[in-house]
């Protein structure tokens, strides 16, 4: 060891080994407190990271579920969509009708034919077998509104002149929905039982009559204008699938 190193070593020892005015025992208490604080912070961090893990897992699940919901054709590949109805013939026989995986499009479609309309909805449409002369000359205008598939609203309108018209609206109720109909104070209404046993509610709005009823989870509404009341009843009684 050269002289320089020797001098440095000696003086360093003199500096560092000289006792200070600080008591290490007192400092140890502060040190223990810091350790406890650090442990608590570490536990808190672990809990936070655990929560982040769960949130990340939940977010991943949500992304997968959302993707699946937005791309329902993926699900259809694994499971058939099946709709069934039971209907009665004129001879009172029962017929089971099934529709499997119907092709559908969401949106509003105007001027479709009856056959096209039947293929675009998941329930059997009714159509009148009887029409008064004043409405039977021209084919009906049929439109479909299907914004919440598989719920669809089909409107069949018969209008010969500007004055007289008859509109049949059919809507399936496959999803749970509550609704209220407010009847104005000056509009008289009554419940009618037709010859075929169907019970309908009639709202009499002077020149416009509104009939409404629900059958096999399908809600029906028929509006007529400038049409004889008995003629309207005959049309409703003749509705067949």
């Amino acid at each position, binding site marked *: 060891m050269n002289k320089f190193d020797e001098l440095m070593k000696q003086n360093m020892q003199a500096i560092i080994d000289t006792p200070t005015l*600080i008591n290490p025992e007192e400092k140890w208490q502060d040190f223990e407190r810091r350790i406890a604080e*650090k442990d608590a912070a570490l536990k808190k961090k672990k809990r936070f990271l655990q929560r982040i893990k769960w949130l990340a897992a939940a977010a991943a699940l949500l992304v997968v579920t959302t993707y699946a919901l937005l791309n329902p054709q993926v699900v259809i590949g694994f499971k058939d969509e099946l709709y069934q109805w039971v209907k009665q013939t004129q001879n009172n026989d029962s017929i089971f009708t099934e529709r499997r995986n119907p092709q559908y499009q969401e949106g509003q479609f105007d001027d479709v034919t009856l056959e096209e309309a039947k293929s675009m909805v998941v329930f059997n449409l009714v159509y009148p077998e009887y029409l008064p002369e004043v409405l039977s000359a021209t084919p009906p205008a049929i439109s479909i509104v299907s914004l919440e598939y598989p719920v669809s609203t089909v409107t069949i309108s018969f209008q010969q002149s500007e004055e007289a018209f008859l509109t049949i609206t059919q809507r399936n109720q496959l999803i749970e929905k509550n609704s209220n109909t407010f009847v104005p104070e000056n509009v008289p209404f009554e419940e009618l039982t037709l010859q075929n046993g169907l019970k309908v509610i009639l709202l009499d709005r002077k020149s416009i009559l509104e009939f409404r009823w629900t059958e096999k989870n399908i809600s029906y509404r028929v509006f007529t204008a400038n049409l004889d009341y008995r003629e309207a009843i005959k049309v409703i009684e003749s509705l067949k699938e």
Partner: protein
Amino acid sequence: MEAFRLLYLKYYQKVFSTCLLILKNSALAEEATQEAFLKAYTNLHTLREPEKFGAWVAAIGSKQAINMYNRNKKSLTIGEEEKILHIKNIWGEQWDDYEPCQKYLEKETNQEIRRAIYLLDPLLSQMVILKYYWSLTDQEIADYLQVPLGTVKSSLFRARKTLEIELKKIYGDLFSCKEENGDR
């Protein structure tokens, strides 16, 4: 925990003195020391040579002190004499008794060396302490401080040059005093 307490009590003063020599501020030195022991406690499993525990904690403390110095540089700017006075207030004055001339000269020499050490730049001071007090090799200093070996070597070279200039001045005075003694 009890074993660590014993180590803490054994090395606290030395680690504190190491930090104090770098920072020249007792409050910051205390903080750096506590942080050093806290890190040592957390990372005790990473220490490969348990016999070098003291040097290891001192290296952590010195690193902590350098960081604190850099953060508080502006507020720590104090004059040279004030630094020495501050250090003396903590360590206390020594060599107060009457001594013959040779002893007196040695005392004067050592005081000048310590004065030169006190006034070293914090980074150079850190290297000098780890090398001459804690007896770490250049490679060990580089490993503990996680700096390149070249940085350690160049810092030590600069520290040595600075201190040698001071020592040459002192040796000149010392020799002249010896000649006076011989004449008598």
